[in-house]
């Protein structure tokens, strides 16, 4: 633990810590562009120069490892002049197109200019080196070489993280620019991260460009629902529209990254949403109020349960949270007294996984469903057989697919059930044939926990209220259960989780506080 002082403040940090990180521990921000905590140190932007006693030259804080007794100053005139000087040099070729640049609002150049720059340009306009503007270089990325400050983060990301090495720096001197080789565009499943790590507007997201100014966006801590890896994300929204997902740091799960497929998961919160409850009568959809619909669904389910053992059934979904699955299970077993309970996967796609973040299971909570005693596989197949045999009289389905059935197969199967109630977020094969459709909140509109493939229980939070007339699933299930005489007093997902952790061994002792923002391993 070397002891040193930074700007006169004594600090002790572990061996091998750099000045930049040591400064961070005492709240001293050292400006930087090329340094990224997840990438190798390049030391080329030269923004992080600091004074170190006994060193004749300024040192880069990103690469200089602290030593015992070191005396560092980041607040001297010499340092300020160096930082300002570097900033001026970066800005001579960086176009000041902030008004149309998509990075405006979260641009390192803009931010540092306000702190360290505020200079008049001394560069002659005609001297500017022009580089290629809007270039589609593949993946989710558009490159504007003129805005690039050559920090090389993107090049290092593709060398070190994806190891696909599509981007290189070409040419020399002030003609240097990043680009791909002709005919060799970005070709990996993690290109979206390039827009995240680019400190300026050189690499922007094709999907997000010009959709919304970032300062209008609000964020909520969330979990990607694209697969069972449980990547930690930040959901960015304005009003009740979700605009993008950005990876949120979690060393144990996804570090600072997320895949391109997961990044586009946000669209599910916007597109093809079920926004108002309806019933299907004589083949026609008919809008109903929640007040009329919930009692009717409760009644139909209860009647089926009374009609005979296992005449009611519940098909759960691994897209549901632990809390929702827990309630669904209790409805099936305690209120309906049925053994017809299983969960159905979202169509697994091609089952692709890459050994990094992308998992074959494209559901966020299969592990949670199994831990809560809801089976899949053979149990689900058996349930389908019973439905096909016509023994099920009322069915509660979560989600919009059944197994890997096509739309026609789904319709054929569900036609065997006199009453099909669906709780779903998006339009799909089930909502097209269900007797009663109960729209539920998307992952951005509700809170709860998912259990990742690795058994990590992670919390996601509601960003905004459910769109349209959609309802929070927990609230909906509580009301439905109470209509069937449950007498539950749950108020929101936190209270459900409290009950769940009290009775379900894998989750024993967990609270929302202990799960925190980084998750907690469930008991084996």
């Amino acid at each position: 633990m070397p002891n040193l002082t930074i700007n006169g403040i004594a600090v002790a940090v572990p061996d091998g810590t750099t000045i930049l990180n040591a400064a961070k521990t005492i709240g001293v921000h050292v400006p930087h562009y090329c340094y990224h905590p997840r990438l190798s140190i390049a030391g080329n932007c030269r923004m992080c120069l600091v004074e170190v006693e006994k060193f004749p030259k300024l040192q880069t804080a990103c690469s200089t490892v602290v030593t015992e007794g070191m005396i560092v100053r980041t607040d001297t005139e010499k340092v300020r002049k160096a930082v300002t000087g570097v900033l001026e040099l970066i800005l001579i070729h960086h176009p000041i197109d902030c008004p149309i640049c998509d990075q405006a609002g979260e641009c390192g150049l803009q931010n540092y200019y306000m702190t360290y720059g505020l200079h008049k340009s001394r560069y002659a306009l005609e001297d500017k080196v022009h580089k290629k503007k809007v270039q589609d270089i593949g993946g989710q990325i558009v490159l504007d070489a003129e805005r690039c400050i050559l920090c090389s983060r993107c090049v290092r990301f593709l060398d070190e993280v994806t190891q696909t090495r599509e981007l290189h720096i070409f040419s020399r001197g002030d003609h240097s620019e990043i680009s791909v080789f002709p005919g060799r565009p970005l070709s990996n499943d993690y290109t979206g991260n390039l827009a995240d790590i680019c400190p300026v507007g050189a690499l922007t997201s094709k999907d997000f460009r010009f959709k919304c100014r970032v300062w209008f966006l609000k964020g909520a801590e969330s979990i990607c629902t694209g697969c069972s890896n449980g990547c930690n994300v930040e959901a960015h929204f304005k009003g009740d529209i979700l605009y993008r997902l950005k990876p949120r740091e979690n060393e144990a799960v996804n570090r600072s990254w997320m895949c391109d497929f997961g990044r586009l998961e946000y669209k599910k919160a916007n597109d093809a949403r079920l926004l108002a409850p309806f019933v299907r009568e004589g083949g026609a959809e008919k809008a109903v109020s929640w007040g009329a619909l919930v009692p009717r669904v409760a009644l139909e389910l209860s009647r089926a349960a009374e009609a005979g053992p296992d005449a009611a059934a519940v098909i759960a979904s691994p897209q549901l949270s632990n809390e929702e699955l827990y309630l669904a299970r209790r409805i099936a077993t305690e209120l309906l007294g049925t053994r017809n309970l299983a969960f159905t996967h979202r169509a697994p796609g091609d089952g692709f996984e890459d050994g990094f973040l992308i998992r074959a299971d494209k559901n966020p909570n299969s592990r949670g469903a199994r831990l809560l005693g809801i089976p899949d596989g053979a149990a689900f197949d058996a349930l389908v057989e019973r439905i096909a045999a016509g023994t099920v009289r009322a069915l509660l389905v979560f989600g919009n697919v059944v197994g890997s059935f096509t739309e026609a197969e789904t319709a054929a199967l569900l036609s065997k059930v006199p009453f099909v109630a669906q709780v779903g977020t998006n339009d799909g094969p089930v909502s097209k044939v269900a007797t009663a459709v109960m729209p539920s909140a998307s992952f951005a509109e509700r809170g709860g926990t998912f259990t990742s493939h690795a058994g990590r229980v992670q919390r996601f939070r509601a960003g905004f209220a459910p769109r349209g007339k959609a309802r929070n699933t927990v609230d909906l299930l509580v009301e439905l259960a109470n209509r069937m005489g449950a007498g539950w007093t749950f108020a929101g997902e936190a209270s459900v989780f409290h009950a769940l952790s009290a009775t379900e061994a894998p989750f024993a002792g967990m609270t929302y506080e202990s799960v925190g923002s980084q998750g907690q391993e469930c008991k084996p």
Partner: protein
Amino acid sequence: METVLTTHFADDRYRGLSGYRRTGGYDALKKAFAMTPEAIIDEVKKANLRGRGGAGFPAGVKWGFLPKDLSRPRVLVINADEGEPGTFKDRVIMSRGPHLLIEGIVISCFALRAHACWIYIRGEFVREARILDEAIAEAYGAGLLGKDILGSGFDLDVTVHRGAGAYICGEETSLINSLEGKRGWPRLKPPFPASVGAFGLPTIVNNVETIADVPWIVTHGGERFAALGCEKNGGTRLIGVSGAVNRPGVYELPAGINLKEIIYTYAGGIRDGKALKAVIPGGSSTPVLRANEIDVAYDIESMAKIGTMAGSGGVIVIAEGTCMVRALSVLMNFYAHESCGQCTPCREGTGWLKKIVGRIEAGKGRVGDVELILDLCDNMMGRTICPLSDAAAMPAQSFVWKFREEFDRHIAEQKCPYGNRFL
């Protein structure tokens, strides 16, 4: 005056192995094999042999930076890139005395316990690369390279690696990157090459001239080599004099000889009877001297005292009538072209300097441009991974400091007072 390197360079036969041997070539190697590696390093330290590539770091001390542990192979890399404008002495060694370099390499590798050596040669030195290849083939044929050299049990392979034409690859860490097949970008230090160098191995990078001095040191002893030069700067130096002199060329002279003597006695004084205007003393990156500053010893410390450097031994002589703005403009074009683009101050600064100096020379200078040059140089000096930024800023700064009135006149008159015009 005793010479170390060039004694036989006038003899064309010296280039071949038999001619080299006739003058006692490879006797130093036999002597070295009878010594311990430590004893050889001691002699090099005693010799006060300072690196001849420009930085002037003591060679023996540098060798001592190799890790003690021998579990990883070590390598020697010869820096034969010689890209500094005004410097052209290593090519003379390689073309006139290639075996001198090879003998130096074998002795040095034996002392360093290295069994592989690469000669990284500037791509443009086509002829020198061919001569080296021929000499290396001869050496292999005679058992002077390869397995069990001269029955000593010592093995060594030497490979010539031709660069692809980048000045920056003369900087030792970008040279290593280039040798490894990567882009020639300088590496952040630490780690230093002595611990993690070429191919991740402990590496010593030495200039051609430095290594070519080693056989003489082994033959005659380090103290005698040291005595040839001056205090702290042992031996002789190959000094390449170019520009407006009567006898431009490469001269082997004792370290510490007077710069004025180099120009007037050895290089024959200024051409066409003109007066001396300025001297760039150690290759194009070193701060320029005015005519009245050249009565100075040509060694590292004396040159540092007057704010310049002996560098790589390239003395560029500028006569009266030469436009200093034009001269600087040529230099700035070079550095802007050669900046690798890695560090911001160099990438943007060299290009900016080129444009400012270029427009002053073209009669389009603006009031404030001279101050801008100085401030820009301030923002470039010592701010980058390698010294290329300094190499551009040092001449720019010194040209302005010492010939300020020429810059001011260019701006005031909006033309070159010397009638120079860019075509």
